């Protein structure tokens, strides 16, 4: 612990300035952000397709074989991804599946993308199912066919409903990528570990934590702004005039309203 409270100038010199070590941090930051972003894109594509298959199968009265097989495959895929630790997944991807690949960043993007797809699928499934059944009924009764209702009425609302949870998935993915050093990719955590090894000083860990924390706080700020904007298009909530400053009447004295 003593090394952390040393002269701050010495620490900053050792961690950032000597031998231009700040470049290592910049590379780490770039790799973390690039891999998270593209992995999320892949995850969204995969997750959306999975969600459509799952919801179509589950809402059909008697699902045809053309839905049954993909549904079974998709369920196995999601079970496998959710059942195997991410670190093991990325090692299998790098040492077995893409063993000859020289592009470690691409391997990482694919590994995290495939992993993210399983979780994003649940987000989209929830988003689709959360759209009121009345919307489907209204659409059909207006003469739209089932695919038209899906495409023009349900999906836009489903996607809107999924956006906050997708934002959270982005944040989770960002933190999950901290293990990619295990296949040699220079991310923020690995930059910190390399510098720890060169300086025999644990303070780089604090900077690694600060970096992730800053990114996550910023992303959470963006997510909450997005949620506020989405709420604007919904029906206004009638203010509860009983509240009088307590949390929905929970902590009111003298009994409930």
């Amino acid at each position, binding site marked *: 612990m003593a090394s952390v409270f040393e002269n701050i100038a010495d620490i900053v010199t050792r961690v950032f300035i000597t031998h231009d070590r700040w470049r*290592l941090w910049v590379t780490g930051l770039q790799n973390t952000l690039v891999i998270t972003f593209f992995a999320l894109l892949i995850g969204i594509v995969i997750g959306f397709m999975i969600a459509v298959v799952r919801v179509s199968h589950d809402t059909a009265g008697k699902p045809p074989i053309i839905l049954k097989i993909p549904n079974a495959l998709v369920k196995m895929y999601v079970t496998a991804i959710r059942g195997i630790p991410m670190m093991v997944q990325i090692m299998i991807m790098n040492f077995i599946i893409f*063993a000859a690949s*020289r592009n470690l960043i691409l391997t990482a993007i694919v590994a995290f993308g495939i992993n993210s797809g399983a979780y994003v699928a649940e987000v989209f499934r929830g988003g689709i199912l959360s759209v009121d059944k009345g919307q489907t009924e209204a659409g059909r009764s207006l003469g739209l066919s089932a695919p038209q209702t899906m495409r023009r009425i349900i999906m836009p609302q489903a996607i809107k409903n999924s956006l906050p949870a997708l934002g959270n998935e982005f944040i989770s993915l960002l933190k999950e990528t901290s293990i990619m050093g295990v296949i*040699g990719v220079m991310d923020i955590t690995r930059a910190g570990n390399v510098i720890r090894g060169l300086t*025999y000083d644990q303070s780089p860990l604090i900077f690694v934590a600060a970096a992730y924390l800053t990114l996550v706080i910023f992303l959470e700020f963006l997510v909450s702004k997005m949620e506020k904007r989405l709420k604007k298009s919904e029906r206004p909530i009638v203010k509860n005039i009983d509240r009088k400053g307590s949390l929905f009447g929970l902590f009111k004295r003298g009994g409930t309203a």
Partner: protein
Amino acid sequence: MKRNPFYLLAVIAAILFLAACGRNNGAVEVNTLADLAESGVRIGVQLGTTGHDHAVNNFPQATIIPYDQPADAVLALLAGDVDALIMDSEPARNFVDRNAGRIRQLDELLTREGYGISFPLGSPYVARFNQALDTLRANGTLYGIMDYWIHNEPNASRYVSPPGTTHPNGTLIMGTSAGFEPFEFFEGTEIVGIDPDLARAIGDLLGYSITIMDMDFNGIIAAVQTGQVDFGMAGMTVNAERRQQVDFTQEYFLSGQSVIIPVR
């Protein structure tokens, strides 16, 4: 106080926590090579190295703790998590210098070993690299590199490509594991050291430019076998086991396993 199951859980957690705190009472003092044979001694090694093999084969009574990076093993020794480290002598000397006064090396070496450059079995590059190494030894470049990185000769310098060198034959990818000063380690975003310098010198002679790919030491041989890298150069000892997986060039550096202990 209510009979609350969480109360019991908290008590159990507190007991476990306190038990974990008292972990440093297994320390064994190591002062000579013979002390490594004490029962219960904790020896730190780098995963997959010949030091690791030597420890496992010769000290069955010890607790062997492998680390992915040598620096992590050194940090463990400084923290008292292990009693001694077994590591290649040059990097060991480097770690000792960087932590002056807190750790030291025993004078005797446990083994004698040579480092080689690894290629896929049957590769035609082995003969060409051997010829290049002979040339570099004859014209003094090899000793110049060692003078700079190992002996810290004031007049020596890092390897620089001779002016007018071209690389018409393409690029070769070198697999290594940075973190093994002075053989390969990070300086800023670049990997520098004996192995990068020597590889570039060989590449210049043969007309190849060299790109360095960093990875786990333990994965280098597999990377050479699958073709993820063209050759492996990572302060890697030549031994019979590895010879079954890859072909090695001649040995370009003679080393040995040494023991690092804390200064008391």
